[in-house]
Every structure is written in C-alpha cells, then in structure tokens.
C-alpha cells in the first residue's frame, strides 16, 4: 500500500477545481487587440457612412475581420456580428450613393 503510494504521486483527494484567472485585477494579462479593433471598426464605418468615404468603409470591414480573428472564445458573438454588419452596411451605402469606383490616393 505504502509502496503503491510512494510510486504513484496521484492523490484524488487533493483535487482542486480550475478557477479562471481574474483579469480585472491583472489587466496586463488581457490582449486589448480585439477591443481596439472593434472600436476602430465602428469609428471607420461611421466615418464612411457620414462622410461618404469608400476607403473608410473598406478599412472598417478589415478592422472587424481582424477583431474577429483575435477575439476570445468567451466573448459575445453579438458584438462581433454587429460591428461586422455595420461595416458591410457602410460599404454598401457608399456604393449605392456613389457607384463610381474608388480612386487610389496616388
């Protein structure tokens, strides 16, 4: 019995449950990229809609994609979808109002 205990380090009686680390007390552990990209995407899509700038709308689409790629699995998908839809609507509205193709800045 003791030999078995000595050889086998497992102790089922000493099991502790997993507690996810509290990120509120340690903000350095969190990656801020998805939140920043989400915000940036929304700002660009509003710019694109209000100022009728096509390139703003396209950048908004990219931002929402980047935010989605970097997001945590625990995050709300509704937020992601809403920013994505907003950016798509910005692109569509810019083209409906002005079907001309985008001119490069150079």
């Amino acid at each position, binding site marked *: 019995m003791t030999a078995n205990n000595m050889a086998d380090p497992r102790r089922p009686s000493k099991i502790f449950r997993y507690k996810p680390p509290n990120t509120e007390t340690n903000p350095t552990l969190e990656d801020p990229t998805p939140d920043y990209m989400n915000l940036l995407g929304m700002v660009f899509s509003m710019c694109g809609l209000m100022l009728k700038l096509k390139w703003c709308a396209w950048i908004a689409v990219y931002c929402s*994609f980047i935010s989605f*790629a970097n997001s945590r699995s625990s995050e709300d998908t509704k937020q992601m979808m809403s920013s994505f839809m907003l950016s798509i609507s910005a692109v569509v509205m810019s083209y409906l109002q002005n079907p*001309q193709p985008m001119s490069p800045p150079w």
Partner: protein
Amino acid sequence: MRHLVFLLPALLLLLALPDTRGRYNDDFDDGEDIAEFDDNDFAEFEDVSEDPAVDVEKEPPPRAAPSSTPIEDDEDEATVENEDGQDEFEDADAQDQDMYSKYDNEEFEGYEKTNPSFKNTLIYREVPAHLQNSWESYYMEILMVTGLLAYIMNYIIGKNKNSRLAQAWFNSHRELLESNFALVGDDGTSKEATSTGKLNQENEHIYNLWCSGRVCCEGMLIQLKFLKRQDLLNVLARMMRPACDQVQVKVTLNDEDMDTFVFAVGSRKAMARLQKEMQDLSEFCGDKPKSGAKYGVPESLSILSEMGEVTDGVMDNKMVHYLTSHAEKIESIHFSDQFSGPKVMQEEGQPLKLPETKKTLLFTFNVPGMGNTSPKDMDSLLPLMNMVIYSIDKVRKLRLNREGKQKADRNRARVEENFLKQTHTQRQEAAQTRREEKKRAEKERIMNEEDPDRQRRLEEAAQRREQKKLEKKQMKMKQIKVKAM
C-alpha cells in the same frame, strides 16, 4: 437675314430639283407633291447650309492667313454669285458639310476664330468610369476583396495549424500527465471534478490545461501560447520580427510544500526583463543576474537568487543536466513563495494593501522552430515536462538551514515594512483629505442654514466637537511624554 430672302428663289430652282431627285425619289412613291413639299420645307435650310458652307470652305483658309479682309455682305454676294454656276458640281460636297456650316456667316461677324481648323479637332470627352461598363475600372475594389479573401484563407489555415500543434503537444504529454495527476483537464464549469481529457481553447492561439490531484502541489496550469497564425497582420509583422511559440507552466503549491525563498534562472534577456517586471524578483533579488557559468550551466543562462544557499540548493546535478541539454528551449524558470504577478501600476492617491502572494513555480519554454514549428517538434518538449515534475518534488524536499531561514524572514519583514511606510504616507494623506472634506461639508451646511437659531446651534455643536478632539490629543501627548520619561 435679308439676303436669305433674295437668295432663296434663285437657289431653289438650281438646287432643289437635282437634290430631290437624288434623295427622295427612291424613298417616296407618292407623287412629287410630297417631295416638293418636303423640298420646300427643308430646302430653306438646305440652301442656307450649302450656301455658307461653300463660303466657309473658302473663307477659313483666307482667314487663317492674317488677312484683314472683314466678313462683308459684298463678299458673300460675290462668292455666292461666283458659285452659282458651280453649285451643281459642288452639291455633293455641300451635302457633306458638318453642322457648323449650317450657320449663317453673318452670325460670326466680329467673331474672330482662334481655331480655324476646329472642325478637324474632335475632342473625345472621357466617359465617367462607372458608365464605362468595364470591370477594369473597379480594380481597387477587386484588390480589396482579394485582400479580404486572403485574410479569410489565412485565418482558416492558421487556426488549423495551431489546433494541430496543440493536439500534438497534448498527445505526446498525455501519458506523463495522467500518470502524475488525478485530474487532467478541467474547465471549472462542470459540477463534478472529472477529467475532461482535453485542452481548453481560450482563443485561436491560446490553449489551457488544468491538472490537479498530486502530492506536493495544489495544481498545475499549462498554457500553450502559440503565435497568432490566424491573423494575417500578425503573420506579416512576424516576418519583420521573428517570434516563437511558448509553453507556460504555472504550478501552485500549498504552504507546506515549499520553504521561503525566491529564485529564477533563464536567458539573460528574460532575466533582465523579469527583474524589472516581477514584484517579488524586484524586491527580493536586488542584485544583477549572475552568469550561469559559475554553476556549470551554459553562458546564455543567468541566475537571480535571494541568497547563495538557495542557488546551491536548487542547482543540483540533475537540474544542471536538464538546463544544459535544453538551454535553448528555456526562456525562464521562477520559483517563489512570494509570487504575486507582475508589478501593478498604482494610481495616485490609492493606498494598496499588501498584494496577495502564493507559492508558485513558473516555467516558460520556447518551442523550437522559431515560428515554423511542426507537430513533431512538440515531442522535444517532453523532457522539459519531466524537469517540471522533478522540480516540484525537489522544492518539496528543499529546506533552508537556520541561517538561511533567518535571513529569509528578515528579508520578508523588511519588504513588508517598506511597503507599509510607503502606503502609510498615502494612507495619512487620504485620511487628511477625508477629514477636510467632512469639515468643508459641515461648514457649508451651516452657511446654507437659513434659520439663524439653527445656525448658531450647529456652530456650537461643531465647536464642542473640535474641543473634544483637541483635549483627546493633548491627553495622548501627555501619556507619550510620561511613557518616554
């Protein structure tokens, strides 16, 4: 315009008949009446067009030359009369004049043509791009969509690669973990503590595994921190600055499992960074990192320790062997009984309680391959996991001697005192501000009180309170003085 009236009858006879014969005979089978009617209807304009057309033909060339011959009625008449006879031959030509020739010359009196040959230079206006009906004009949009598609492709490929690497790691380490821990894999949500036997996916690039149920430790959290292969921007950034996947192991210990010491070993860069960042390393290991060569470990590794005895205790033969053979994979190894994470930036005026500490062993390993890892590389991390298990058992057995223990206790007391001193001034300031706020609020209340009687009463109450406080302070001072004596 008056000349038209004179010219019309003459020209009608000469031009109309041959014209109608040429143009309308084929089209109309009705009698000549209609043709004649049409002729008469349009003949007016025909004559006008042919007449000045011929004149315009002749006139621009002379006008091109810097001649001062003005456009005069006499000339018109003259040219017309001259050409009366030639009209028959020039009918065909006259018909081919462009629309500019239909205008009367007199309209252009005084108008100096700057471009006499303007009818030769037809300007082709650019058709706006969106009316062109060609996809080529939308090349920027096509570029954007292509970029998006590339991003999506990269996302799928990167996600799959990370997932395969994680699975490969788990497959190679599963046996070792299951033989050492009663609980392998837990997400904390299920009611009963049963092994899930799989990794928790936190992100597309971070995987967690919680193991528990072993002697000498509370639990072990393994984090597979892969590169963000699913994000194209990150992939491009990594082309500039290469980075590697990391495996982080954090073992939390019970109080009886570890003696009081702080120790760290790792690559020189990592040690320099940790000494600045980590709360416990900065407080307890004040000296510069020492080179590992002194202890038989490669030069690339350096050591941070609370005292020499700890280093000697930790760096036994087996440990040295592990470190030497896997030096390139070791980023940092950190043993601490005062672990509280990285230094938290304090906001001004906020007194902190002493941060909570936990006895912890932290290991950070670099996956070989520098980003271009394949699932096979995960097997090379297995010896490192053996080292982790060995370290857990070793730390349990490592006990400082009496001197070492005393030194360690003194260090901890010193750190606590420093902390209290720092926060003491902050706490005092906070208390002072609070007291001042209270006084101000009271005074305001008194001032705002309209009823003079109540005002007086409140003032008196405030005065009495102040007096009491003063008396208390005086009593304290007296007591202190007596004690001092």
